């Protein structure tokens, strides 16, 4: 957290210092009040040398001072609060912006280490936690210790014996509270873990509701849930017992200390070592300390929370993108569009190779099919062409240049990829398609939709192309999503088109029509599929298995040369029909 403060709080240095000083001023006013009171009692009220008239006059003056303190305190606090708001919100805004930008620069190698849900949490709630810490620090960092220490010093000034008792009490309070905290933390962790189990069971029963019913396991699921919920309740009750002691304990210790102070004061009073006004002031300081202790407690809780959040944010900052883009902005006019040269690729150092020594090249205008089972490395291939990841060994070149040498924009202009999982954004269909080509006009959009076999269903929607795609596109079916993401790729003016298993949710007929459209394109096209039927009529087929390139060739060539290919076709009922 300190690191984050150093980086983003610099701009608000003045705010922090000035704000804290204002709070100190406020604390000062509060600390002086009991002294004024002591003066009023010892020097005015009990001073029998003064006439009633003089007494009342002096009391009015003192009262006036108290009112003045109240107003001054109010002004300084208000200013401090305003400064704290500005500083903490500004800090949070800067931090969030910067963190968001940073996340945007990361490559997948880094993003794979932290789940996206967790990243969003860090961006949205952890930054807020740290931000609240800033406000709290301005409010409390000087004020609370100042009141605790100030009250202590004041009480030492008033009466050193009482001061000693104050000191002892305060230390005892903090020690006890921290001791309890240490006892509470592991139990609350346990309770959190149990709560996760309860949530998990609920989640499973939602996603699996059909299966649970099909097997008539409602009773079993009910018992499973109740067992876990009951044991959660037991852990929580344990927690409740300890937590219940916190506040009464503070009350107990403070009052016990007052008992002792009063007794000691009594002993001194007999010897005329302490005045009534002194005792009065001491009791006042006691109340002040009690309130400050509570404030410090909240501060500590908030600070630990903030520190944990800061830690989580720093973990994100610790990741730096392993991918640095090059500066080439143009392409060579070569026939060799994509070239893999002895490429080996691992997702991380300890993982098995996802691709092993792959070499092939693809010529301009070729339509290539890539086939293979799950884990064969098909998608990894696409990740490397797009440079979502860097190769571990060997090189990938596009149009004669290593992908590493292209600028980010140029590389993204070269390739249009339709991902396995169709992703659409929460905006209109039209705007979604336009992500492929910013300045596309309506006609281009309609053409893209038609080619992607999406126009029919889009024109049936309420607002046609203006139809709003909901978050996660939950108002569209799997097949509709796929077709829209294909349309988005088609509209993009890129010479290379990659379709990663992107027609899996389409029926045979729609897929066939789509294939016909794609065939017409004057582009280099790579189609990845699990279905042999999707790639049979490609110019060439690349067969992958467990990260290795097994064979390349046309459908007929592979049928005669590759046993694995024959197996795939047989299992999908293709061999006989085409041989």
């Amino acid at each position, binding site marked *: 957290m300190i690191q984050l403060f150093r980086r983003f709080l610099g701009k608000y240095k003045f705010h922090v210092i000035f704000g804290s000083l204002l709070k100190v001023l406020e604390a000062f006013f509060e600390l002086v009040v009991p002294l004024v009171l002591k003066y009023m009692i010892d020097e*005015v009220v009990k001073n029998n040398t003064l006439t009633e008239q003089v007494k009342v006059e002096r009391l009015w003056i003192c009262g006036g001072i108290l009112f003045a303190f109240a107003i001054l305190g109010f002004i300084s606090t208000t200013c401090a609060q305003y400064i704290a708001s500005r500083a903490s*919100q500004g800090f949070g805004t800067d931090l969030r912006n910067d963190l968001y930008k940073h996340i945007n*620069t990361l490559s997948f190698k880094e993003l794979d280490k932290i789940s996206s849900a967790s990243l969003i949490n860090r961006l949205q709630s952890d930054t807020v936690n740290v931000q609240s810490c800033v406000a709290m620090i301005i409010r409390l960092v000087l004020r609370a210790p100042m009141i605790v220490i100030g009250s202590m010093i004041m009480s030492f000034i008033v009466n050193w014996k009482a001061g000693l008792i104050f000191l002892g009490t305060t230390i005892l309070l903090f020690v006890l509270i921290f001791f309890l905290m240490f006892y509470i933390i592991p139990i609350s962790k346990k309770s959190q873990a149990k709560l996760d189990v309860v949530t998990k069971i609920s989640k499973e029963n939602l996603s699996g509701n059909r299966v649970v019913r099909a097997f008539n396991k409602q009773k079993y699921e009910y018992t499973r849930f109740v067992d876990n919920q009951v044991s959660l*309740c037991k852990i929580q009750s344990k927690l409740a017992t300890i937590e219940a002691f916190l506040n009464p304990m503070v009350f107990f210790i403070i009052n016990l200390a007052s008992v002792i102070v*009063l007794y000691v004061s009594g002993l001194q009073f007999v010897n005329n070592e302490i005045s009534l006004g002194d005792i009065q002031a001491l009791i006042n300081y006691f109340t002040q300390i009690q309130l400050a202790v509570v404030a410090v407690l909240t501060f500590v809780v908030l600070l630990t929370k903030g520190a944990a959040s800061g830690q989580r944010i720093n973990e994100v900052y610790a990741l730096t993108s392993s991918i640095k883009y090059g500066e080439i902005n143009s392409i060579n006019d070569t026939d060799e569009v994509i070239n893999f040269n002895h490429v080996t690729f691992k997702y991380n150092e300890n993982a098995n190779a996802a691709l092993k020594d792959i070499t092939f090249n693809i010529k301009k205008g070729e339509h290539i099919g890539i086939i293979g089972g*799950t884990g064969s490395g098909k998608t990894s291939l696409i990740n490397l062409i797009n440079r979502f990841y860097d190769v571990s060994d060997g090189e990938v070149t596009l149009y004669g240049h290593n992908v590493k040498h292209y600028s980010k924009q140029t590389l993204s202009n070269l390739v249009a990829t339709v991902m396995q999982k169709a992703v659409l954004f929460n905006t209109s269909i039209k705007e979604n398609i336009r992500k492929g080509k910013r300045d596309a006009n309506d006609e281009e959009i309609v053409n893209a939709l038609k080619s992607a076999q999406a126009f029919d269903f889009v024109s049936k929607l309420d607002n046609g192309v203006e139809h709003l795609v909901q978050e996660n596109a939950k108002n569209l079916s799997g097949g509709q999503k796929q077709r829209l993401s294909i349309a988005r790729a088609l509209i993009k003016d890129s010479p290379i088109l990659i379709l990663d298993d992107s027609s899996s949710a389409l029926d045979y007929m729609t897929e066939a029509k789509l294939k016909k459209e794609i065939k017409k394109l004057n582009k280099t096209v790579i189609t990845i599929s699990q279905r042999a039927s999707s790639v049979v009529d490609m110019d060439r087929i690349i067969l992958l298995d467990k990260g290795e390139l097994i064979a390349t060739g046309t459908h007929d060539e592979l049928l005669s040369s590759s046993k694995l290919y024959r197996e795939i076709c047989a299992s999908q009922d293709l061999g006989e029909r085409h041989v």
Partner: protein
Amino acid sequence: MYNLKSMIKRILHYLKPYKVRFVFALLTSTIYVALTLYAPYIIGVEIVSLFNEATFTMSILVEPIIKLAIVTVLGCIFGAIMGRLLNVISYLMIKDIRIDAFNKLLKLPVSYIDSHVHGDILTRVTRDVDQVWDGLLHGFTHIFRGVVAIIITIIFMFITKWDIALIVVILTPLSVLAAMLIAKFSHKSFVEQAKITGAMGGLSNEMITNQKTVIAYGLNDENDTKYQELDQKLYKVGVKAQFTASFARPTTRLVNAIIYASVVLYGTIWIARSTEDIILKVGVLTVFLAYASQYTRPFNEISDVASELASSFASLKRVLELLDEKELNDESNLEEVTTNIGEYEMKNVHFSYIPNKEVLKNISFKAEQNKKIAIVGKTGCGKTTLINLLMHYYDVDSGEILFDNKNINQIKRASLRNHIGMVLQDTWLFKGTVKDNIRYAKPDAGDDEIIEAATLAKAHDFIMKLKDGYNTVIDDDDGLSTGEKQLICIARLMINLPKVLILDEATSNIDTRTEVNIQKAFNIMMDGRTSIVIAHRLSTIRHADLIIVMKDGEIIETGNHEELIKKGGYYNELYNSL
């Protein structure tokens, strides 16, 4: 639909089992509050007033000091009892209501679960339930304690000296008023802040989750700008919200300080004007000063608690909505299936999810004993809906579905489903060992049985390759491939194979070898049973006894492969489009 009265009634219902404890908690908290307020009274009236130089001796001090010590100890004990009771009651109530909510999930019609976002239902069962009792119970007790504290303070003050008490009582509402005004003022900013935060969450969620698409289409800079704009807006609203909200503190503190100063001034002048009992009066002043500095605290807390209460009631409403959702009808008067023929028939079935938008139109077909029925058609033609009806997850709009010649509306759902085995495309496994997942349908199955089922399902080989074999803990979200998960689902069915099978073939994301295994396992299962298969594979379709071709929710052709090809209709076109 839910007003305050009806909601409170529901709360009382859940409180009922713990009413003795609850009343006891209120009692102890009253005593606790009284004791904490009695302490300053003792200090002021009974102790400080002794400090008169003329009459003071240590011996007269002993009695009130012991009294103070006893009050302290008692206060601590009652405080702890009260805290524990309240916390435990709230946890117990959370437990009760959450179990009810979960039980509800098991009894709701599938249509409810299908038509609601799962994350939202989940939040109702988990966070909302917590929020209800945290907020309501703690909120209520806070207010209760606050009110008790205020009443007792006022009583103590009026007993001690009524005219100073009057000053305090008259000035206090100022602080409450200020807090309320500020809360109202800042509320608007907070609402807007929440809105912008929501928008930012949505944006970052969309962008981070879909990073690949973002990079592939070069959308990074565009998103940076969009995020910055929102962030800047949030800053402006945030400063306003935070400042107006935090303004409450200095304001109430100001009111407090004014009350304090007024009491001091009035009190000291009162003492200065009299000539006798000065010390006693200083003691009285001490009591007032102690009260004045803490007296307004409950008021401020009440305004804090009020906002929390509001959000608790919002949560309560969400929980109640779930709890009051209509359950499936009572089935006790329905029949059990006693036959074991395994015949399924649909007669003129119509069905729609949304009124007037028919998904199935006039569907009639019969799955005869031990026959294989393949259902084919394009995506969206109503195949999945057919499963929903056959499993009786949904009710038909009109027409009937007969199982062994009995209308399924007359059969208990559980009994019907006991006779049907189902494998869906979307596999579902719970977090647990492979073994437990397989014996889900038959908890007492022995290891031999489990291995036999897995072997039949062609799952044994890959299970043995897992880290701990059959004892490997698996989860629906990760670890296994789709195909492997489906094999385990088949094994789960194998262990207790019913007479009728409803199978939904997977279309994608399964590697070829696993697919071959699934195919083999399907064939083993279907042997000697009636099966209805949503078919995607040609071999399944070709070997079916009856192919039902669907288009736009209607059956347009039926027959076996040869017949349909010969006919040269829609099926022929579908088949040749491959």
